[in-house]
């Protein structure tokens, strides 16, 4: 026995509707996470982080120099005598920041 055309049309629409998934908040959240960020956001965050780092290093510099004076001995004293304590401290901070940046790039936390 076959069913009438109109009833089959309704049945078919109901079948498709029943097979379609309902709203899923997890899917919506997944889409929002996958959306690209504004192109200026990453450089802005990096610039702010850099400025913050410079600010903190600036505040800490006198203490850092004093600590290095106390810790340094042997070659440390020679290096301070040659370069000056402040230049040496800035150099160490710069090398540290470069190392952290390099590690973050390699881990994929930072990208262009």
């Amino acid at each position: 026995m076959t069913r009438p055309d109109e009833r089959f049309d309704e049945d078919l629409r109901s079948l498709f509707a029943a097979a379609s998934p309902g709203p899923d908040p997890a899917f919506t959240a997944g889409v929002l996470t996958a959306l690209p960020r504004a192109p200026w956001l990453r450089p802005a965050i990096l610039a702010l982080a850099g400025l913050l780092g410079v600010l903190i290093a600036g505040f800490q510099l006198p203490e850092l120099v004093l600590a290095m004076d106390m810790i340094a001995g042997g070659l440390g004293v020679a290096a301070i005598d040659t370069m000056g304590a402040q230049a040496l401290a800035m150099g160490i901070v710069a090398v540290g920041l470069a190392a952290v940046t390099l590690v973050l790039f390699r881990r994929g936390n930072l990208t262009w």
Partner: protein
Amino acid sequence: MTDTDEALVARVTAGGDRRAFAMLVSRHQGVVRGLLARLTGGAPEADDLAQETFVQAWRRIETYRGQGSFRPWLCQIAYSRFLMGLRREKSRQRLLDAAAREPAELASSPGQPGSRVDLDRALAMLGDDERHCVVLCYAAGLSHSDAASITGLPLGTVKSHVTRGRARLKDWFDRQESAA
């Protein structure tokens, strides 16, 4: 009062309003996910394609001019993602394999009429264009002219694909009912 699609799109276009876009995703995900699930024959990557569809819609939201409703525009993106996915992952071959296995599976398990698996089996019997047109018109509820502009087929061809596909589905379901 709920915002219309056009109002939500305007908010997204004006200021990249993610909350407005989330409302659009919630509202249309059923159609997009259902459409892609039926086009891919219920393949697990359908939801990945649906996610790509919405990300692409976010990127191209300025190209939506508000002519016609938002749903056909979204379905157009979903359909092109599906075609790209088909090429990329050779889903066509998997779909054909599934269709080739279909008679044996039918013999071993009659299937419950009206189930999702049943629907996918029935759709696998149709030719590609027939299946695409039927799914666009029935799963996404699009008009024949919307389906024609999405698939790039002439309107008359879409109409005949839908009519023929529907008749073949009816025949298939009638045979299933008789066998049960």
